[in-house]
């Protein structure tokens, strides 16, 4: 099978924040990401799942160069973009877009939604005047909203509609990659389905690539081709969705999967929720060796001393564990 060039290629990405401490001592070093290697193939939906503190949002932002990485290299369509800056960086931004979690703060309350959607077109000089208006109307139609509403302000729309407007803004400039950062989490469950359908619809029509960040494992299963499970700044398992969900190999992934509620009272009552002991670790004070070992039932001596790296267990499945299943 020929190896296609990945759309995005990240190697050794690390991000360290300096958090100022109250009493003026040395700032605390917070390692948000530790040595991430990741490829995103064109046209796929890659999901980043993990709990708070896992670094999934940080990773997404590093990939689209919204945050600078402290170390590592980044390539887009084969070209190294690690040190890209200035006008060339700005021009490249056209290819990435992001849809945020909160539909209320992601739209400027002072601008009409038409102006908001037109932003990518204006910034990159992609259209003007009549062509601009036409494109905005087109984008509104594609997300299922009436184009004549383009003069209205965001506060006149509901949460679900605002999220659609954000999606319209994201597709306006014809990007290659869209990052959905918990884009569905703030919506009501019945709305989520429809917006998810919209995402899938747009993906097929425009051959988009998605980086889907979510903590909702049920949602991810519906849309993702591949899933990367993150824990404390590291990708600890990555593979095809079916594989990871049906045969999780990392003990953390296993705990995660079994914690998903199943809408079947008889099944739920009879099964045992294996709960993880201890508390989620803090990125400012990660455990030695494997970051999961304090909570792992299988932890051995190796786990306490050596950080496991991603290892291929099958063609489409990699795990970072010394004792995977």
């Amino acid at each position, binding site marked *: 099978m020929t190896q296609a060039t990945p759309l995005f290629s990240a190697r050794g990405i690390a991000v360290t924040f300096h958090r100022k401490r109250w009493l003026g001592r040395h700032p605390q070093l917070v390692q948000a990401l530790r040595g991430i290697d990741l490829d995103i193939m064109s046209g796929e939906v890659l999901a980043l799942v993990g709990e708070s503190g896992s670094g999934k949002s940080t990773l997404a932002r590093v990939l*689209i160069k*919204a945050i600078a990485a402290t170390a590592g290299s980044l390539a887009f369509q084969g070209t190294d973009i690690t040190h890209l800056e200035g006008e060339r960086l*700005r*021009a490249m*931004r*056209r290819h*990435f*877009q*992001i849809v*945020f979690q*909160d539909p*209320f*703060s*992601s*739209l*400027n*309350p*002072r*601008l009409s939604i038409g102006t*908001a959607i037109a*932003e*990518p077109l204006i*910034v*990159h000089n992609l259209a003007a005047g009549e062509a601009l208006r036409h494109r905005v109307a087109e984008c509104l139609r594609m997300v299922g909203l009436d184009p004549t509403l383009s003069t209205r*302000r965001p*506060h006149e729309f509901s949460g679900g509609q605002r999220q659609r407007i*954000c999606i319209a*803004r994201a597709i306006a*400039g014809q990007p290659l990659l869209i990052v959905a950062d918990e884009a569905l989490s703030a919506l009501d469950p019945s709305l989520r389905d429809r917006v998810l359908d919209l995402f899938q619809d747009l993906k097929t029509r425009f051959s988009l690539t998605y980086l889907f960040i979510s903590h909702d494992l049920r949602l991810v299963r519906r849309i993702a081709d591949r899933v990367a499970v993150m824990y404390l700044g590291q990708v600890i398992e990555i593979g095809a969705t079916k594989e990871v969900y049906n045969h999780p190999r990392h003990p953390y992934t296993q705990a995660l999967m079994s914690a998903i509620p199943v809408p079947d009272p008889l099944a739920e009552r009879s099964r045992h929720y294996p709960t993880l002991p201890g508390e989620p670790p803090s990125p400012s004070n990660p455990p030695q060796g494997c970051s999961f070992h304090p909570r792992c039932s299988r932890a051995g001596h190796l786990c306490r001393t050596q950080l496991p790296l991603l290892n291929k267990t099958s063609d489409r499945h990699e795990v970072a564990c010394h004792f995977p299943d």
Partner: protein
Amino acid sequence: MEYWRALRRIPQARNGVLMLVLIVLATLIAPWLAPFSPMHVDPNARLLPPLSPMVGGASIYWLGTDSIGRDILSRLLYGARLSLTVGTLAVLLSAAFGTLVGALSGYFGGKIDDFSAWLIDVQLSFPFLLLAIFVLGAVGGGTAAVVLILALGTWVNYARIVRAQVLSIKNQSYVEAARVTGAGAIRILCVHCLPNTLSPICVVASFSMAQAILTEAGLSFLGVGLDPSTPSWGTMLNDGRDYLLNAWWIAAMPGVAIGFTVLAVTLLGEGLRELLDSSSSR
């Protein structure tokens, strides 16, 4: 222009605008409305109370005359021009400068922020009135100097508010979205940050206008403001100072005019704030 329609719905704004319109209209047609030139002196008609008939019977002195026989009404109308002009210019100047400094320091932070913080501290540590009197006394007054001094006294208010607003706005998701899209700092400041700071700026501006008119009056009253022969409400107050007991109208009339204008501007400011807040409400 949808703002105009919306403005009319809010009672404070509507009244404020009406009052202001009256005032502005009055000042514009002063040459036709005023029975006399503001400089016209009539020694036979000194210190006449309001509604006194004119010598020669043509009409009455609506608001009376002052110590050298000048018609108060005419001086009031002409004086409005000066006071309003000075007030408006001062507000515009201070708002522009203050907003610029506030926006830049809020958005970029770092050295720019440090510098403007220092500037603000320096400004605030000088007692304004003293500074005004000193500078104006040295320069000799005059309209331009008064406008500049007034602007100098109030730009800090805008700077602080705009800085605080921009600091909180720049962390909003829509600003991040704009950055990810590739928008430059200038676009983000002008299109995303500043429009959202309009509401507090308007409020500060309207109160500042009121304050500016009063301060100008005060400075003129103290004798360091505008040229005493030019009619302004402040100089009129000055003139009326010695006659408060026997010819109260000389000072009272400009006083009422100032109060009326300040009220109008304040109402307008409140109404504007109502409007801006409601148009961006969730």
